[in-house]
């Protein structure tokens, strides 16, 4: 469903992603892993041109992303990225509803229940805790019912219960018409929920494969750790 081919992308003149290729097949959840600064978020940002594509391309449903109108692309691909609410007094319900072209009370109620947000319905997003805001941003992504989910650290700020719940909610929604690409840092979560993992290092693919096959050695060399440093 999503094909990334020889992607070279970055900001200004700076190349962050260099010659990256991989696919996300339908109904699959692919984990994007790697050290900080390895270019994980840049791949996600490149879908909407927030990061500049220098060469290569990203195609969604067989079409190059830059052939989509913004409106069309935003209905097909939903991106969840960290939000900085600052002093924005927008109530949570309105924030989540921004995922919909037209407000839909029924759908909103269901999603708020799925993410345990009913109690915060009228709270301005500036007053939410980090964890609640994170769930709200997931709710905003999920309410759109997109074909493609792009999730940048969907479990940031979440406790163990919500980490598991979040991935379960996403997996629940992956039918034959959907797929998801998620930045994941937690190896055990990747093993539990991802169908495939892609490891990036310095903007290039370091390794890709089944999450079952992630080894201690692989993680040590990826994160430049010594032999005696313990890993999960």
């Amino acid at each position, binding site marked *: 469903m999503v094909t990334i081919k020889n992607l070279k992308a970055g900001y200004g003149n700076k190349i962050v992603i260099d010659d990256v290729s991989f696919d996300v097949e339908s109904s699959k959840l692919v984990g994007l892993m790697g050290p900080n600064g390895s270019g994980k978020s840049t791949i996600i940002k490149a879908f*909407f*041109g927030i990061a500049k594509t220098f060469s290569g391309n990203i195609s969604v449903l067989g079409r190059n992303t830059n052939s989509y109108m*913004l409106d069309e692309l*935003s209905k097909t691909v*939903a991106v969840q*990225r960290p939000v900085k609410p600052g*002093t924005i007094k927008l109530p949570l319900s*309105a924030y989540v509803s921004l995922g919909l072209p037209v407000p839909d009370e029924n759908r909103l109620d269901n999603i708020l229940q799925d993410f345990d947000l009913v109690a915060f319905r009228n709270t*301005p997003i500036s007053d939410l805790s980090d964890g609640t805001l994170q769930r709200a941003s997931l709710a905003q992504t999920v309410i759109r019912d997109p074909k493609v989910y792009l999730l940048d650290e969907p479990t940031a700020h979440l406790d163990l219960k919500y980490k598991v719940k979040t991935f379960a909610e996403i997996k629940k929604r992956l039918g034959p018409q959907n797929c998801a690409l998620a930045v994941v840092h937690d190896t055990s979560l990747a093993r539990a929920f991802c169908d495939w993992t892609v490891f990036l290092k310095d903007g290039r693919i370091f390794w890709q494969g089944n999450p079952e096959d992630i080894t201690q050695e692989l993680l040590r060399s990826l994160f430049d750790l010594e032999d005696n440093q313990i890993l999960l």
Partner: protein
Amino acid sequence: MFVGLLFGSSGIGPIDAIKAIASILGFGDSPETHTRIILLMRLPRMLVSVLSGMALGLAGALSQTLFRNDLADPYIAGIGSGAIFGVNIALLSGASLTILGFSTVSIFAFAGAVLACLIIWLLSGRTGSTGTSLVLAGVALSFVFAGLNYIIVVLGRDILQKTFFWSYNGLSSSSYTGVVFLAIAVTISIVMLTGLPRKMDAYLLGDEQATYLGVNPVKLRSMMFVIVSLLTGMAVTTAGLMGFVGLITPHISRRIVGGESRYVVPCSILLGGITLGLADVVGRSIMPFQEVPASVIMNIAGGLFFFYLVSRKPSW
């Protein structure tokens, strides 16, 4: 609004005013001077104060969205000092022509306001910068204009006094031309805003988030710039400098109706109209045979009220 017709500094009391209005509507008799004062002075003035208040309330709500800053007001892009710059240039050149019922001073004020907005808009397009840096650019531009204004004031005698009078007493020269143009500006803006509140909410989250939600932030920003400069330029031209309305009405609106743009925008329009209309009535009736400019009333009463609001609750 009706109250605005009853009070004034011309010595016609509320009872005489009611008689005059009745006679205009065809009931009873009233001295002609009274009906003339009501029709040619108080009515247009009241309409201009209410309409420019609406324009500034709306422009304020848009500015705070556009700059993503709660301290933004319609004058933040240097519009205020830009307008004064225009006025100063007009006075310095000594030109006096009238176009569509507007004096040179008014036209130059409008041009100065739009020029300031244009500079900031071009800058935001060139650098792609938004938020704080855009606000800073606006503040910087204000200083540049203030400097130029000082030079002009030194160059030409009498200009300082005239500019000062123009800034504060804009409403005292209200005309029906002003009413018509303001009404057109407000109407066009409201029409342009149809369907925008949802996009404004998405825009508030930042350019990147807006893009993911299908909103082109560059396009929306340009649109808001156009509306803000049109409204503020028109308000400055017809009513002089009216500080504070644009800053406080969106804040008070958010307190009343919450943070959604679809409620904040209409509420700011309404509150802006009421506030400025009232400020002008108070300013005209507070001292017999003398006027206190509405902007002065706004500054003092609005400032104190705002201070009270902020101090009442620690988290804004």
